[in-house]
């Protein structure tokens, strides 16, 4: 009995048992596809988190004043008796290459809530900041069209502004905003730049943005009292902790802080934010890995079941084949070729299904296929298929014909 004949037998077996063939294929395919898709979803969502963190900039530290800052207010002011607000002087003192060698630059920020308009179109930007040009680099903001404002614009109080995409479409639907004028809280600004898309960080639309020279914002809108925050950029992510220490040393001295547990300012460190969220996404990925492992197990049990259900029938068939003179070798190769083909076919369909399924956005996450998960899912399913297809057959082939015929 030659090799070709054995193949013919195996495919004969597959085509005469169509239900079993398709169920087994389906079981393997679903197992493989679900593992690939689940892991891709986990990977996709952790990549998305990573991306939004990267967008924030990984080497920036935000200093918030207790007064006039986000979380400040009277209560905090009352607690810290000698509480001082953040000033432009604080920002200037941080731009000191000797005392603060790990700080690349620091920009003071005044923030306010205003509504801007262009004729009948209005928009309330989520962020309306007055700052220095160094803010753009520190905040990882890039320009799509036009320019940033310059130090000259700050010094001379030019009424210019850089806006984000959301604000631009609100105020200038279908138009080029560059060179146009917007009116914010009655102050007219000429739009000189449009920022690249930042996207949302989950809480805030990064593109609902107006940034203007700090001098203009203070003079025309907020007054020259305090600033709200200082955006500090460390020289690199690795020296961020040093930069943090330098900030504390300099500001503590300027604000005459005696008790470091009772500062009149707070710092928000992107590195710690990053650490938290990446550990969150690691937990998430692990969780999905567990789900995937379970689905692989369930898929495997499904395959096993289909294979085992047919064992009685197959064993009898093997008994008949042996009784009419089939050598053990012929029976084994037939059933192993069958099982191999089923597993490979199901596995390939599953991989295709997995890639196809990963093209769709699933619960808001764009799945990204992990190559090793494809190998894992394919490998495990094929092994299960091979084992449970081949093992009962080889056991049956070892029986005496009469035992196989009577098997139940």
């Amino acid at each position, binding site marked *: 009995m030659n090799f070709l004949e054995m193949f013919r037998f195996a495919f*004969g077996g597959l085509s005469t048992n169509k239900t079993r063939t398709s169920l087994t294929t389906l079981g393997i395919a679903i197992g493989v596809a679900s593992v690939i898709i689940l892991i891709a979803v986990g990977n996709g969502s952790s990549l998305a988190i990573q991306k939004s963190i990267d967008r924030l900039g990984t080497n920036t530290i935000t200093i918030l004043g207790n007064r006039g800052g986000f979380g400040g207010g009277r209560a905090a002011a009352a607690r810290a008796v000698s509480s001082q607000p953040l000033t432009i002087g604080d920002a200037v003192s941080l731009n000191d290459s000797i005392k603060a060698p790990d700080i690349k630059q620091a920009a003071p920020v005044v923030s306010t809530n205003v509504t801007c308009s262009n004729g009948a179109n209005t928009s309330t930007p989520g962020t309306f900041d007055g700052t220095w040009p160094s803010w753009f680099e520190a905040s990882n903001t890039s320009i799509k069209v036009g320019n940033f404002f310059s130090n000259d614009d700050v010094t001379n109080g030019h009424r210019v502004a850089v806006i984000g995409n959301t604000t631009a479409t609100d105020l200038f639907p279908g138009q080029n905003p560059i060179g146009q004028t917007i009116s914010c809280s009655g102050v007219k600004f000429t739009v000189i730049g449009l920022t690249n898309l930042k996207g949302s960080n989950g809480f805030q639309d990064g593109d609902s943005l107006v940034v203007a020279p700090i001098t203009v914002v203070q003079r025309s809108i907020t007054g020259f009292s305090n600033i709200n925050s200082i955006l500090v950029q460390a020289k690199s992510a690795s020296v961020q902790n040093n930069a943090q220490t330098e900030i504390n040393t300099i500001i503590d001295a300027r604000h005459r802080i005696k008790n470091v547990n009772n500062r009149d300012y707070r710092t928000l460190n992107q590195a710690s934010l990053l650490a938290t969220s990446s550990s969150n996404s690691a937990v998430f990925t692990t969780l999905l890995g567990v789900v995937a492992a379970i689905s692989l197990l369930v898929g495997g049990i499904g395959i096993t079941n289909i294979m085992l259900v047919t064992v009685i029938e197959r064993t009898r068939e093997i008994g008949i084949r042996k009784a*009419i003179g089939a050598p*053990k070798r*012929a029976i084994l190769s037939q059933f192993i070729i069958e099982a191999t083909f089923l597993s490979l076919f199901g596995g390939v369909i599953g991989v295709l299904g997995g890639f196809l399924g990963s093209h769709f956005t699933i619960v808001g996450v764009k799945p990204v296929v992990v190559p090793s998960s494809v190998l894992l899912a394919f490998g495990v399913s094929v092994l299960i298929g091979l084992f449970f297809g081949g093992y009962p057959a080889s056991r049956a082939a070892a029986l*005496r*014909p009469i035992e196989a015929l009577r098997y139940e």
Partner: protein
Amino acid sequence: MAVDLVVAVDLVVNTKNLATINSNRNESILPVIEIKDAVKRYGMGDNSIYALAGVNLRIVPGEYVAIMGPSGSGKSTLMNMMGCLDIMTSGSYFLDGIEVSKLDENALAVVRGHKIGFIFQSFNLIPRTNALLNVELPMAYQGIKKEERKSRAIKALEIVGLSDRLSHDPSELSGGQQQRVAVARALATRPALLLADEPTGALDSKSTADLLDLFDQINAAGRTVVLITHENEVANRAKRVVHMRDGKIISDEINEVSIK
């Protein structure tokens, strides 16, 4: 009771006489089947059952033997042994002068395929596989080329009167037709020994008659036929009738009806 006893004694006497007759008659010829002290025990210790309790049987080429006996007397067990489908607990079995228990797996497969045609009471066709392919199967395992085995399978199915059912699956055939496919499968390999376990058990009288005519022809062509039956009409076609009870042969006689 008295009558039974007389019959029993009569049988014993008969067996003795026939045994001498048989052995005298066959001494010089090499037997196709020679079974010595065959014992088949199922289970262990107190629960053990002797399906065969010391069977001696010698069948020479060209014989037509019917095995009869009550249910559970060990007929199928003996037949399975002869067909190399099962092994005995003790004793020896020579098939064409070769001791079967000394053969390995591969050699056994060759013996089953080439020397023996086995017909089961329950047909045992491969499901969802048409009549032609079922008949071809044993020849495929023997390595016979596709064209030849196909023509031989068609011929065999023609002989059993199923030329018009070649592409029917077993589930699309009547019991009698399935049994005839099984017969065709056993015949197509041209075995020297045809073993049939109650081949007519599931057949009506017409199908039975047809099948028995076929067996007559096969035997007339020089092949050895051994069949198990409960029916006297069937046994009457055989040239020799062996009776079993409780795992033993209780009589072995030339069938006068058939001989004449």
